């Protein structure tokens, strides 16, 4: 097997908390994206018998066609990577991951005889325990039992993939997805013992958006998660300073008020006089410790808690700047200025916009973190939001597979290299 063959058959698989991005190097800049979820069909139901359904599990773009009642959704729909980690014995979650992986590989596997399998580069959370790596390698072997789709596989942590995609060998990557936020210093290799994790991501902002929608009289809509996410992305704002932003919003309601239409429906959402709450959504991602959130916790909104998953602590209420400082301070002092001088923000949870007319009151994620770090006495900081954050992990996978020589075998002590699974 030649290097040339490997380079032409590199296949990236990014198991994000919310979306699964996949595809071979030949896709160029943009991978295929489907939701990282699977729907377990009730095969005894009348509908599945009418439709001649033979499988138990549906993944990918077909999922919406098989959805049944809203009550069944919670039980039958499985989001395997919601927390970035899959429990060892969570059979349903592993089944979804296997089915999604097969779906991805089969979608692009050429039919001709010269095809001898892809070089698969999978990317998972930096806090994933070793058993997840073992399970994934085993899964590739199992997929190969039917037909050789993967010649060799490797697994890299998502922050490393981000640093690779953005051509930065020394940096601190803050990757914030749906379920959690990972902070990982990188200096040619990920500095694993300096990793910090927060038990909140875009999902936490969704929960707050639900409460805000309920308060504004949209309690019925607040039950639909995809709609809540849509509303959050359209109305959420990150304040430069929350107290000042709230004062501004209350005296300039016309500038902050917004009315959004949900595509393909008659639904229109308008927070009216409660439009000031738009600033709470963004603030919550960066600093849930602000006193204003206490009233929501008091009314029953779940508070992000500290949890231990595998060997990693996920902090619930620690503010993001504090987490970055704690992570960097675990690295050698000589390295610290370099890590502060390039902080990369990646993941859908940093894509906040500043609408026209609200400049100065609302800010982007990079400005917010820079200000938070300055308040804590950290100067000479460069914070940048990566371009196309949704695709950067997949792109990093492609570069990794393209560059790492095929004769470099997997090493458990370094957690890198190619594992032969064919």
């Amino acid at each position, binding site marked *: 097997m030649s290097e040339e063959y490997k380079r*032409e058959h590199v296949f990236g698989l990014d198991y994000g908390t919310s979306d699964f991005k996949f595809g071979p190097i030949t896709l160029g800049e943009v991978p295929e994206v489907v939701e990282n979820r699977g729907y377990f069909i009730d095969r005894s139901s009348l509908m599945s018998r009418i439709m001649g359904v033979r499988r138990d599990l549906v993944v990918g773009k077909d999922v919406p066609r098989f959805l049944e009642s809203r009550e069944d959704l919670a039980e039958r729909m499985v989001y395997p990577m919601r927390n970035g980690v899959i429990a060892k014995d969570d059979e349903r979650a592993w089944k979804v991951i296997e089915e999604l992986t097969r779906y991805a590989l089969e979608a692009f596997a050429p039919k001709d005889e010269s095809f001898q399998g892809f070089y698969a580069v999978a990317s998972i959370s930096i806090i994933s325990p070793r058993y997840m790596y073992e399970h994934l390698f085993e899964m590739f072997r199992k997929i190969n039992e039917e037909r050789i789709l993967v010649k060799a596989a490797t697994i890299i942590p998502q922050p490393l993939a981000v640093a690779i995609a*953005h051509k930065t060998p020394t940096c601190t990557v803050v990757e914030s997805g749906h379920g959690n936020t990972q902070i990982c210093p990188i200096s040619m290799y990920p500095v694993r013992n300096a990793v910090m994790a927060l038990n909140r991501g875009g999902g936490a902002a969704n929960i707050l958006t639900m409460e805000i929608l309920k308060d504004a009289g949209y309690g019925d809509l607040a039950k639909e998660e995809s709609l809540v996410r849509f509303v959050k992305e359209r109305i959420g704002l990150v304040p430069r300073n929350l107290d000042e932003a709230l004062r501004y919003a209350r005296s300039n309601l016309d500038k902050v008020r917004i009315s959004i239409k949900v595509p393909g429906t008659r639904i229109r959402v308008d927070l009216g006089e409660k439009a000031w709450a738009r600033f709470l959504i963004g603030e919550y991602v960066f600093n849930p410790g602000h006193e204003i959130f206490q009233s929501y916790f008091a009314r029953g909104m779940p508070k992000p808690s500290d949890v231990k998953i595998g060997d990693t602590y996920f902090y619930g209420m620690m503010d993001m700047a504090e987490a970055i400082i704690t992570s960097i301070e675990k690295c050698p002092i000589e390295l610290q200025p370099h890590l502060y001088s390039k902080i990369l923000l990646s993941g859908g949870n940093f894509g906040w916009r500043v609408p026209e007319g609200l400049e100065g009151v609302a800010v982007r994620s990079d400005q917010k973190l820079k200000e938070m770090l300055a308040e804590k006495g950290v100067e000479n900081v460069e914070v940048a939001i990566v371009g196309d954050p949704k695709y950067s992990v997949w792109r990093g996978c492609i570069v990794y597979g393209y560059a790492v020589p095929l004769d*470099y075998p997997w090493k458990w002590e370094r957690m890198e290299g190619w594992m032969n699974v064919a």
Partner: protein
Amino acid sequence: MSRRRLSPEDVIAAIYEEEGFYEVERSRDLGSTYSSRLILSDGKKEIAVNVLDEESLLSRGALQDALLQAEKLKLKFDGVCIAVPRKYVKVIDESVMSMHGFGLIIYDKLGAEEIIPPRLRERASREPSREPNEGVEKAGVESREIIELRKEVSRVLRILEEVEARLDRLERDQRSLAGRISRLESELARSEPVQRREEVEVKVQASPRSGRKLPSYLHDNPWVEILSRRE
């Protein structure tokens, strides 16, 4: 293995997304024979974009028709744009477009560009004009819409089948060529002395043998060298 093709509507929606607009609707313009329509909103303003493709511009009168339709849209939307393929930009007088408040967008396979921003109207001034006979008009429009959509769906399906067949043929040819080159390369490699590691590293920078352009994130990426030295 396939490469995704973006439609003109995709690239146009992308430039407005940066300004906080999102796509509310994408449809064929029912009042016109030539263009498709994209509706974008930022929560406060709604912009309609009439998109003309190369095929439609082959018909005489396509541009006038699109402009007349766009004039009507001014009553319903805060701003109206016309989008044309980049090579047709010279046939449009920008000053006239600007005078009438139309936005102008040009696009090609690589992306879109807003040449003239649309003149935006105040919401209050347009809303009353939507009220009269709305229900009657809507029923008429809906039945016409269904007929048009059915026609469109069968046309698109036909085209899709043809494109898929062509793509299959091309992929078969490409794979057979790649196989032949691979065999030739392995024969060549057997006849040459074993390459040193340094030589392999230099090769890492080269393009894949198929001659495809490397993606931007691989160009001048220091990680390629760092990772290729892993041993």
